[in-house]
Structures are given as structure tokens and as C-alpha cells.
């Protein structure tokens, strides 16, 4: 069965079981491995994408539920104004260690800044609490979000 998805502004056709999670459609059917598999239960945030601007866990989102909605992935996030700022801050502060969770972190951070351009410390922690970083780069995640939002001194690596 085919499902048509709108991904990063393009219509993409996926021939798969409609219950297949969006994560696996991206990774296996559409050759977009930037979105990561971490837990399969929406617990770690590594698979975060935007659906109609909201940060969503693609590992628990069937493609049938994503059809007809605007999906944005890590491969395209830097084309969004907030996504560009977030991506640049992530590089400037060298946020990643192993890097595996960072696509999901960047998607959540971009969704946060799009809705809340100047988040408080509490708002940052709350918005990012669904994204696990096993290397624990959290101090830099906080700093990079502030830098992207223009609410902190610019820190050069």
C-alpha cells in the first residue's frame, strides 16, 4: 500500500504497511538516515522530526498519521530561520560528543525557538526534557539554545 508524505517540501511516496513508523520509512524507504532510532517508544527523542511545526517522535508515529501533514527532518532543518541559528550555534559551541542524539536535540531546540524565541532556563529544560543525550552534553545544549536565541554572550569554541 502506498502512502504519500510531504517531507521537507517535497511529495514522497512510500510503499509500505501504513502502520510502519515514520522513522523507519525515513531511514529505510526514503534514504534519509539523519533521523535516529534510539528506543522505539518515544522515550529518548533521537527520532524527533517536525510535523506541522511540532516536535514529534517519529518512532511512534505511523506513516498513516503523518500523511497530509508537513514533515521536516534534520536534513532540511537548517533551511528554517530558527533551524539555521540553532545549527550554527551547535557547530560554534561544538555541542556533539558521539553526536547520535543531536539530530533530535536540534529538532526539539528549533521547535522551541520557533514558538518561544526567548525561552527562560526552565522553558529550555522543559522543552528539551524528552531528548536524552547519553554523553550528557546538556550544558552546551543549554548554551547553544541561548546563543541561537541571542539571549547569552556569544561563546566561541
Amino acid at each position, binding site marked *: 500500500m502506498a502512502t504519500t508524505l510531504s517531507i521537507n517540501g517535497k511529495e514522497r511516496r512510500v510503499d509500505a504497511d501504513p502502520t510502519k513508523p515514520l522513522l*523507519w520509512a525515513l531511514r*529505510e524507504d526514503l534514504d534519509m538516515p539523519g533521523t535516529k532510532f534510539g528506543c522505539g517508544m518515544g522515550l529518548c527523542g533521537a527520532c524527533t522530526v517536525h510535523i506541522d511545526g511540532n516536535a514529534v517522535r517519529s518512532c511512534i508515529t505511523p506513516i498513516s498519521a503523518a500523511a497530509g501533514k508537513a514533515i521536516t527532518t534534520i536534513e532540511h532543518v537548517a533551511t528554517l530561520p530558527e533551524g539555521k541559528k540553532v545549527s550554527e550555534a551547535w557547530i560554534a559551541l561544538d555541542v556533539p560528543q558521539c553526536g547520535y542524539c543531536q539530530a533530535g536535540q536540534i529538532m526539539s531546540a528549533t521547535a522551541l525557538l520557533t514558538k518561544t524565541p526567548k525561552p527562560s532556563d526552565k522553558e529550555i529544560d522543559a522543552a528539551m526534557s524528552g531528548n536524552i543525550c547519553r554523553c550528557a552534553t546538556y*550544558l552546551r545544549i*543549554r548554551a547553544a539554545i541561548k546563543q541561537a536565541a541571542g539571549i547569552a554572550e556569544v561563546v566561541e569554541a
Partner: protein
Amino acid sequence: MSAVLDMDRRSLIKATLIGGAVLAFDARMAFAATKPGEVATVINAFIRINADNSVTIGAKNPEIGQGVKTMLPMLIAEELDVDWAQVHVEQTIADEKRYGPQLAGGSFATPMNWLPMRQAGAAARQMLVQAAAARWGVDPASLTTGGGRVMQVGGKHAVTYAELAAEAAKQPAPDLAKVALKDAAKFTIIGKSQIGVDTPAIVAGKPLFGIDVTMPGLIHAAVEMCPAYGGTVRSFDDSAVKGKPGIIAVVPINSGYNPKGANDAVAIVAQSWWAADKARADLKIVWDDEAARTYSSAGFEAGADAAFGKGPETSIVNKGDADKALVGAAKTVNARYHYPFLAHGTLEPQNCTALFKDGQIEIWAPTQLPQPGRMLVAAALGIPLEAITINLTRIGGGFGRRLSNDYMVMVAQIAKALPGRPVKLIYTRTDDLRHDFFRPAGWHSFEAGLDAQGRLIAFKDHFVSLNRDGKPAQGATMNPTELPAPLIADVSYGATFLDNNVPTGFLRAPMSNGLSYAFQSFLDEVALAAGLDLPEFLRRTLGEMRTIKGGEGPQAVDFQTGRARAVIDKVCAMANWQGRSGGNGKGRGFAFYFSHRGYFAEIADIAVNSGGGVQVDKVWVAGDVGSHIINPINAVHQAQGSVIDGIAQTIIGQKIEIVNGAANRTNFHDFPLARINAAPQDIVVEFVRSDNPPTGLGEPALPPIIPAVANAIFAATGKRIRSLPVVPSQLV
């Protein structure tokens, strides 16, 4: 002893023996084939000079987030005398004959490569200088280098490395041990923060990790492993699986853990991993696991109690007469401590890709230890080592989990069953948490004696942990040099290793992560009995500045009391430590630990809320890892990450329990990892530079934070944390 455990451990030990030795690489062997159409010249195993005068440098070690893919090429680039902006970094394949030891573990990369990588860069520079000297007919000593060019001092000649590369490649390769190295005062790359070489690609979502490997015709495998360790497949019924759309094969395999050699896992191979994994529900397997199911956490707990009643079975160190000294002590202190099994929980689940064709296998592996993986695959497939090619991928977290190569040996068997078809095996999160090589649980029964002046005069520990095939299990050992043994006259450490079948292994700062907690928490109790805070008690116990030999041979690591004192003093100054302080739910704790050649002292400020929850507000870290911090930004990040990793082990409920011979955790709801709210507001890191060769930073900042937080909880609440993880209800 299973093949996986034994080979991996032997390899790690062998690798440590090579530390500091000259790398025996063939200078004329390419580290990677020059791409078709690319104009480039191979200078040695690590260096290719490109036509545009950029330089491609091979990074030989697996990158697990410790920053080694940036750090090792920095060492080469420094001595090659190029600008960092000229450098491209390329991951090498696994080939120890060309590159020397290739592993990510033990914080070994810095001590093992500080000289060899610089020598590789310096050798190439020397060949370039010789080529220029020959071209111009001048003395090489009259030439200098910089920015990827050779220049005549005060003279008319200057030429880029690119222009010289072909001639340089024909120069005799210098003796690496004799090649001249830069004066450290002239370093322009070492000591300057460099962004991770893969950071832009990570941020752009580019495929880098093992799980991202793809190629035409790729098929996918999910695997059902016997839940109880050591159990085997008695029979299986795949009739409900084979008819499903997209299913390609069902393949019984051996995880490598089972010493009997019988199959203990069944793989389902499909066009999609999601489909393969879903089909597991319809696979009926009967396990032969009656003996395996007898092991449990409750059983180990009872075993530890019984062991404490009987006394140690073996001695670790025995000097003087600790029992007699305790009888004569003015004060004695005793307590028992416990820490649980832990999983690694790398965020990228275990995975591996392989293609078997014409008796050869090519593997794409996120492994910390490729060489033992090659040996396991050779043995499992009955093919020679030379028939195995291992490509190293970026790794989504190591923490010691990927020192074991279970995923590699399993995917190799699946690939052999489906020749010509590339296959990728991925564990689910539940597979990953249940089929880990766990940090072994440990128990300690301590007894210490103080004289009338509050000096430590006697110390005893009965350490209880787990065995495996008659030997201490991997990660369940303790050294006779564990402090305070070398510092006092009357000491006895003994051990009992309980009968065990649970796979164990190395978790970041292995042994040290548990031992630091137990010893530094207990020493805080002893210091209190002596009327002192822990920093002052340790200063007095460390005594005069001296070097304490860590044993014999190249593996031995000496302990310098002066370096310990320096980081203790440093962190106390950083945090303005004023002695024990705390109460009303707020407290400050201190601990020191020496591991992986690094000296670290840490102070934590914590708060306990009305529900017993603990929040770490701020942490100070002082560390001594030698004369140079090679990549400062990454050094600070490694220390900060280690601190939060240790906080997670202490206060967020991390614990694996064994029930019916199997781990009972399934995902991040029942085995939590640190989230952003567990991170302190700040972690201040400073390094004390000492006149010692640089050593690694992946691990040694982790151990002290665990007892520092536990000691801070005591300061805040008066409740001593004698078992991990901290249980909030006990703090209310």
C-alpha cells in the same frame, strides 16, 4: 570463559603493553586508496598530500564521542607543520599491521599515541624537507617549514608540500624513534581548541554511524537471543514467520557468549528491519535454559551476605597486621557498601553490517575493539583473518559496551548464510539493555582504625563480586594498589567471587566507578570519626610527596602523592571549600580518585527536596592529566559529560536486576538515562599542568563525582548512602 570475553580482555591488555612504544607501521603503505581521478601523494600510512596543498590525515581509532578522530590527527598535523584548516580527516579501516593498535578503551589513546602520532607527522615533514633540500641542492638544516610549505631560512626558496609530495614520497623513511620533534613551546595546534571534525556533518544529519550504513541490496536482521544467559536453542518453529511479506530467512546463530558453542539466538532477515523485528512475535523458540535461569540478583545478594559471614576466599593485598592494628586502634569504623549491575545504554543500539562473498567478508562495524572482533569472526566462520575487512564507522556512544563484539560475530554468521547479500543487524532497545555486558554488582565490608591523633592506622576491605568460569568476572577486579592500601602499614584486602553466569564487562572507568563510590564514601565516614573533613584527612593520609610504584612492567602505573594533593588543593580553592558544610536539605561533598593515569578531585553542591529527590546544583572539577591538554574544548566537555554520567549512576535510579537468569529492564522508562534536568547549572573544570606525559580524559573525571554527591547527601541530610542508586524514600 566465553570467546567474546576472553579475546577482548586479552587484546586490551596486549594493547596496554604497547603503550609508549614506537609504532611499527610501514611508511609506504597507503592508509586508504587514493580515489580515482584524485591527484594526491601518499607520504606514509597516515598522510596523503593533495594537489591543492590540503592534507588528508588518517584517524585510526574508533570514534565513540571521546574526540579521538580530531585529537589524533591534531598530533600528526602539529608535527607535519600544516595549518589545521588545511587538514581533512579520514577514518582508516581496521588494520593493526599498518596503523598500530586501534581501540577505544581505557583512556589509552593519549598515552599510547602522544609520541607515535607526532613521530608519524614529523617523519613526513622530514621527508618533505629532504626532498626540498635535494631539489635546491642545499643543507636540510637550512630549511624550515610552516603552513604546509618548505622554506629556506632567509633565502630565496619556498615551495608547497603539494609541489614536493611526489619527490618526498621517494625519500627514505626516517627512523621514527630518531625523528626530531617540535619544541612544545612552538605548538600551534596542540593546546588550541578544535571543533570536532565530524561536527558539521552531525549537525546536518549526514550518515556517519554504523546504523546508517547502506548499500544497494541491503537487507535487515533482527535477532531473538535467549533471555537467560547461557541458555541455548532447543528447538524453534518459524512456520508463522516465513510466509510473511518481506521475510527472507530465519537463521539460528551463536551470539559468541555461549561457551558450549551451541546456538543461542535466532535471526529473522527481511527486506525491512521494522518488518523483521515485528515478525519476532510469531517466532516460537524453546530454550534450553534451566541451569541458566537459576541466577538472580536476590541470589547474589544472599551470596554476598553469606560471604561476609565466612570471610574472604582470596587475598588481594595483605601487609602488616590489620587485625592487630584494629585491636589497638583508638577508634574503629566499619560499614558495608553496595552498587548494582548497570547497563551501558549507548543511544545508538548495537548494530553491525556485513557482506559475505566468495569466502571473504566485509564488515562495517561500530566497535571499540575491532581486532578481537576479527578473530571471533574468523573462528565462527572458519575463514582466515586476511579474508576479513573491517570498516570503522562513527559510534553512537561506547562507554565500554562496544569492547564486546557480539553484534559483529552474529551478523557475520547471518551474512554467511546469505552470501552475496549485504545484511545489517540492529538490536532493539530491549535487546540492547538485556543483552549487555553489565557493570558487575559489588559489595564491600570495610573496617578502619584510627589512632588517638586521628591518623589512619589500619584498613580492611572484604570485596564481594562475581566470577565467570572460575575467574573474577570482567569488570569485577580490584588492584592491591587501591587506595589507601599503599599509604599505610597495616592493610588487608580480600575478595570473594560468587558463582555467576551474567555477562559482565567494562563500563566507562570500569572497576573505578564502583570502587571510588565505596572507598571515598567510607573514607568520608572515617574522616568524620577523625574529626576532619575528607580533603584534610586525605592530605594527612597521603603524607609526604613521593612516588608509589604501581607494580612492575610497562603496564604498571605509578601513583604520585604530590599530584593527588595538588588537585585536592586546587578544587578546594576553586569551590572555596570551608570544611564540612550542610543541613536543611543542602550539602556539599568532596571526593578524590586516581584512575586511568588521571588525578581528579571534585566538589558537588546538592539539594534534597521534600520528596527525597536530589538535585546537583554545581560541581567543581580539578584534574591532572599531565603536561598538555591537547584539545581544550573537548577536554572540558569530556569532564563535564563524565560528571553528569556519574550523577546518573548515583541519583536517578539506574539499576539492572537479574531475575530468572535474565536482566529485567526493557527501555528508558525502567532504566533511566540522565535528562537535561539532571544536569547541574554549572560544572567548572580546571586542569593542573604537571610535568608528565599527557594521558586520557574519557574516563578519570567520572569516578569521584559519585562519592562527592553521596557525601554531599550525607552533609545535607545526615543519611549515609551505603547502597546505589539513591532511593528517594530513604531521604525523606
